[in-house]
Each structure stands twice: as structure tokens, then as C-alpha cells.
């Protein structure tokens, strides 16, 4: 028992260090700019929340992007009505996402297994349709919700900044631009604001998985029927897990709007829901660190891959003879740039087929194999 407490504390400290030093660590990889760093933190929160549902209980939701989208819309509305201060926006986005997840969770959780997945997918698609066309007065439909000059902004002070801020501290401000080993690192207010919530989210998820509540959720994954014969009413536990993870998604959506005060229906599409699933399984579902790793991994490669165009490819393969160079470019071309989704889909399949434990699971078994404990277990 004491050893887990110790290792938990070490893991938390390690995580805090990783997050706070993020801009410096990523500088050599060309990843140290506010937009990407913020995405890391936002999707880290999203994936951690998703993992509370999927990783612990095994219930696969295909509709969590709907809560993220709802959070974004709620936050932008707060900017429109009150002021550019991010705090009320975040609070409302968590509440709105929570309310939506209570309703959707209540209905979807009447079923388990594949039915649950189908139902959440259907709900998410419905919410996408609602946001895209039905509720245009609220969501501004195709165009997306944004802030206009004639918005009321009742609480906007005369001298407070005209961009998202925390009591005057502007989110888009880069307060330090040092160089690390010849690479520029950008330390940005918005990133550290998100980082605070990422660390908080991580800490809460750690506490949950170490609690009796978390143990019940893991028992649901292993044998839900048995759990009910043990005197546990599984549905309220499931609903609680669903709502908690929905609120995480809402927080992520709110943070996203705080970094960039826009909200659009495409954030709610099934592809977006699929992405958070991929992040979680890529890193390792059910592990604490896995989902954050997965989120970082996907967002990093998305940023890198999307930037690669044919010109870049030609420069890569320039050392080859011309004919071969063109062939190589033609082969790689469908996977990069706009073809990033193809790579994503392939990655999805490869992970499910060959690495069901995700990166963390892979590292763990590799570690075991190296120390020889794995061989002893099998023998």
C-alpha cells in the first residue's frame, strides 16, 4: 500500500515537471509554439476524462466530442454575454457539458456493450445535426459561433483587454522566448492556464482510480453481472463515471474556446469522438499517464504531418535518383498533408491489432521482458 502511494506521488511530480517544462522539452522537436502546446493540454484533459469512462469501466463511448462541443459553445456564449474573462466561461462549459451528459448518459446507459457504443454515436450525431442546422440561433450553424462587436458583453470593463484573459492576463501573450540548443521555445500564458487544469485533471483522475468508487468502476469492466449480485447498483456508478468524463470533455471544450474564442459544429463530429478514443488506446486505456501521452503523440504528429507537402517530400528524397524520388513522393504523398486521416485510421487499426495495451502497455511488457521477469512468469 505504501509503495503505491509513493509511486503515485512520484508519478504526479514527474507529470507536473513534464507539463511545466513542456515548452522547453518540445523546443528541439519544433513543437514549442502556443497553439500546439495548448492543444496538448486541452486534448490531454479530454483524453484523461474519456479514460475515466472507457479505461476504468470498459464502456466505449463514441459521442464524447459532443460534450466537448457543448463546452465550447457555452464558453463562447459567456464571452458574448459577459466579458472576455475566461473563468465564468469555463464554469458554464463544465456545467452545460455535465447537464448534457446526465441526459445522454441516463438514456444510453440503459444498455451496455455494443448497444451503448451505438447509442452514444447516434446521440453525438444528433447533437452535431442540432448544432449544425437545428439550433442555428444558438450555434450560428455552419459559420460557427464567434464574438462580434455588437455583442452585449455586459461585464466587459472599459480598459480590460479585447481578447480572452484571466483578470487582465491575456491568454495569447508569450511572456518568454528563450532559445534552447538553437531552438526557440515560447512560454505562453494560455498554455500555463491550460496546464493548470491538465495537472488538476490528472490529479483528480488519480484520486478516482485509487478510491473505492474507482474500484467499483474497474469491477464493472471485469464482471458487471457479478457486481450487481454483490449488492452494488451498477447504473448510478456508470452514470457518475459518464457525467464526470462528460464534464472533463466540457472543460476541454471550454479551454479550447478560451484559447481561441470560436466554436463550430465540426468539433462534435464522430471523427472527433473517434480521435479521443484513439488517443486513449494509443497511450494505453486504463493507465493514468497513457491518455495524455496518446493525446500529445497524436496532436504532435498531426501538426507535423499536416505541414508536409510535396515540396517537403521532394527535399526529403532529393538524394535519390529523379525517377525513384518521384516514386517515393508518390508513395508517401497520400499519407501526409491532407491525407493525415488515412495515417490516423491505419494507426488506429495497427494499435488495436498489435498493441492492445497501448504505448504504456508496450513499454511495461518491454521492461518486463528486459528484466527477465516476463520469461519467468511464462515458464
Amino acid at each position, binding site marked *: 500500500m505504501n509503495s503505491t502511494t509513493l509511486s503515485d506521488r512520484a508519478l504526479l511530480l514527474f507529470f507536473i515537471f513534464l507539463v511545466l517544462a513542456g515548452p522547453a522539452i518540445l523546443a528541439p522537436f519544433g513543437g514549442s509554439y502556443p497553439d500546439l502546446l495548448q492543444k496538448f493540454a486541452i486534448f490531454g484533459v479530454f483524453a484523461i476524462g474519456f479514460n475515466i469512462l472507457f479505461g476504468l469501466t*470498459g464502456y466505449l463511448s463514441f459521442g464524447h466530442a459532443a460534450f466537448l462541443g457543448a463546452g465550447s459553445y457555452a464558453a463562447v456564449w459567456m464571452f458574448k454575454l459577459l466579458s472576455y474573462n475566461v473563468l465564468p466561461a469555463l464554469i458554464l462549459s463544465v456545467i452545460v457539458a455535465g447537464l448534457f451528459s446526465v441526459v445522454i448518459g441516463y438514456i444510453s446507459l440503459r444498455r451496455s456493450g455494443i448497444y451503448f457504443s451505438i447509442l452514444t454515436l447516434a446521440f453525438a450525431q*444528433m447533437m452535431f445535426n442540432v448544432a449544425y442546422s437545428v439550433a442555428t440561433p444558438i450555434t450560428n450553424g455552419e459559420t460557427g459561433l464567434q464574438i462580434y462587436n455588437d455583442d452585449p458583453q455586459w461585464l466587459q470593463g472599459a480598459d480590460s483587454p479585447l481578447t480572452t484573459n484571466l483578470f487582465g492576463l491575456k491568454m495569447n501573450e508569450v511572456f518568454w522566448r528563450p532559445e534552447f540548443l538553437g531552438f526557440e521555445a515560447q512560454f505562453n500564458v494560455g498554455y500555463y492556464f491550460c496546464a493548470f487544469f491538465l495537472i488538476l485533471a490528472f490529479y483528480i483522475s488519480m484520486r478516482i482510480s485509487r478510491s473505492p468508487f474507482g474500484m467499483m468502476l474497474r469491477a464493472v469492466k471485469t464482471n458487471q453481472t457479478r457486481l450487481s449480485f454483490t449488492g452494488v447498483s451498477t447504473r448510478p456508478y456508470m452514470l457518475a463515471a459518464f457525467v464526470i468524463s462528460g464534464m472533463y470533455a466540457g472543460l476541454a471544450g471550454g479551454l479550447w474556446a478560451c484559447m481561441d474564442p470560436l466554436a463550430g459544429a465540426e468539433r462534435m463530429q464522430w471523427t472527433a469522438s473517434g480521435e479521443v478514443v484513439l488517443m486513449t488506446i494509443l497511450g494505453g486505456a486504463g493507465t493514468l499517464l497513457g491518455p495524455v501521452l496518446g493525446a500529445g503523440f497524436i496532436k504532435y504528429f498531426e501538426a507535423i504531418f499536416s505541414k508536409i507537402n510535396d515540396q517537403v517530400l521532394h527535399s526529403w528524397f532529393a538524394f535519390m535518383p529523379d525517377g525513384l524520388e518521384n516514386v517515393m513522393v508518390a508513395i508517401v504523398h497520400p499519407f501526409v498533408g491532407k491525407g493525415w486521416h488515412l495515417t490516423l485510421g491505419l494507426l488506429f487499426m495497427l494499435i488495436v491489432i498489435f498493441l492492445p495495451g497501448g504505448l504504456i502497455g508496450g513499454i511495461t511488457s518491454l521492461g518486463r521482458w528486459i528484466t527477465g521477469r516476463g520469461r519467468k512468469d511464462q515458464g
Partner: protein
Amino acid sequence: MDAILLQVLNGLDKGSAYALIALGLTLIFGTLGVVNFAHGALFMIGAFCAVTLNKIFSISSEKVNPDKTDFLGNPLVEKTPYLESWFGDTGIAIMDWSVPLAILFSIPIMMFIGYVMERGLIRHFYKRPHADQILVTFGLAIVLQEIVKAFYGANPIQTPSPAAFVGTLDIGVYIGFAENAITYPYWRLVYFAFACAVIFAVFAFLRFTTFGMVVRAGMADRETVGLLGIDIDKKFTIMFAIAAVVAGVAGVMYTPINSPNYHMGMDFLVLSFVVVVVGGMGSLPGAVLAGFLLGVLESFASMNVVKQFFESIFIPSIDQIVIYLVAVIVLLVRPRGLMGRKGVMEE
């Protein structure tokens, strides 16, 4: 009255597509116990079989005609499809009938894809958790649609029906309504008839062949059939291929109704899932019935009268979400779906 009839007709073509996809989904789920998230992609691939055949037929020889100029003033390049120059009128007719002909073209392709999918991928997931099955087919769906996008681009591609079926039929006159009260495009009628034929064929196949008997028994009780010593694996592969063909031909024939694009598969898949849930998971008649029912319902919801009514109670654009609302209500009132067996959806 005529307006209502018209909406019923309008709903039938979309309903047909839902029914055909849901039928395949139910077959696969019932026999293999796998929910195939890539089933919509099979529908989409079918549609692109038609596009491909159309493109192949229109491969043309190019000849510069120096006497004429195009609108930019350059010498006009005249294109003559090889089919036309080789076979004359027969060639033109073949091009015209490319969509129906694409059925023949698509069947072997869909069977092959179904075979490879089951043998190469799905088979290895029978014993894995449901979540893994969903995830891997979901990944496959993305891969398939991105491949199609890479080849055909992101825009819808028009694929016309044979000239004989262009235009509309004035059904109303036949049943005593005024002229032009109920008109209906010929091709949609063809699609509906085609869907009925396919559904009938599948049901007849399941009812009257030994193979079908085993499959039905397998849907009722998979373990027992396995114990009987029947080579169920092979049957599963064939079943999967059949479901793929059904989805594929549904896609082929749908192309003249809606120009195919790479994401049509997923759009239809989500709705087909809803259809399956409403019809009753594991029930083939339920899937078909719910498919048509929801198609018709959707078309009713898009009527102006209905829309205005729902707008007056603050639910605008009801047609966009009506299917989901129905699904929610069905689920709350009758959890096992319209025709689901007791116990199938209970847990």
C-alpha cells in the same frame, strides 16, 4: 391525402437504403456477433464501383479538330469514347446503362472485399472484447473512406441513371388523383423495387437453403450450432461476403439518387445503426421494417406543414433529428426494439 402519399413514396428510397444496410449489419451481428463499423464503407465502395465503371466506359480517344475552337479560342479537342467508336449505338447503350451494369461489376468485387475483410481481420477479433471489434472496424472504415477520397477527391461525383429512367412517373393519375398531384422519379421506383427484390432474395435464401437454415440456427443459438460439428467458420465467411454484396449493390443503385462522396458511408451507417436498434437487434424483419419506417418518417418530417408545426413548438428543422428522437422514444418505451426477441437487448 395526395401529399401524404407523396411523402410515403419519397421516404421509400432512403428507407430502402437503410433497410439494405441494416439487413447486412443484422446478419453479421446475428451470426458473427460483431458490430461492423465498416459496413457503411462497403455501401460507399459499392457506389464507387458504379463511378469507376462509368469512368472506364467513358475512356475516350482525343482528336484535335482544327476547324473548331473552344471558348478560349484554342483548337477544340473532340472526345469520342472508345465504346462508341468501337460498337456504335451498342456502345452508347452500354455507357448509358453503366449503373445497372455496375451491379454485375460490383458483385465479385464486394465478395472479394468481404472475404478478405473477414478472413484477414474480423476473424481474429471474434474472441477479443467488443470494444476492440468496434475499434478495429472503425479504423478500417476511416482507412477505406480516406483511400476513396485519395483517388476520387472530396467532391460528390454525378453518376446518371439510364436515359430510359430519367424523368418522373405520374402515379397519381393511376389511382384517381389529379394530374401531377403525385409524381415520382422513375429511378426511385426502380430502386425501391430493386431493394425489395434483394430483401426477398436474402430471406428466401435463409429460409429455403440448408445454408440458410444453419445460419438462422446460428443466429438463435451460436454455441449449439458450433457444437453440432458444422463448419461454422466457412459459413461465417460466406455470410460476411453476402452482407458485403448486399451493402455494395445498395450503394451501386443509389448513385443516381444521390451523387456519391467519400463520407456517404458513415452518414448512412449511423442512421442504419439507429434502424437496427429501433427494429430490434438481431431481428432481420425488424431491420427491414424499421428501415422503411424511419425512411418514410424522415420524409414526413421534411414536409413544410410538419416543419412549421414543430417550429411553433420551438423544435426547428425536425427532419434533421427525427430519427434520433424516435430511437430515443423506442428505447425508453420498448427497449428491445419493435421486433426484437425478449432478452436480446435486455442487458
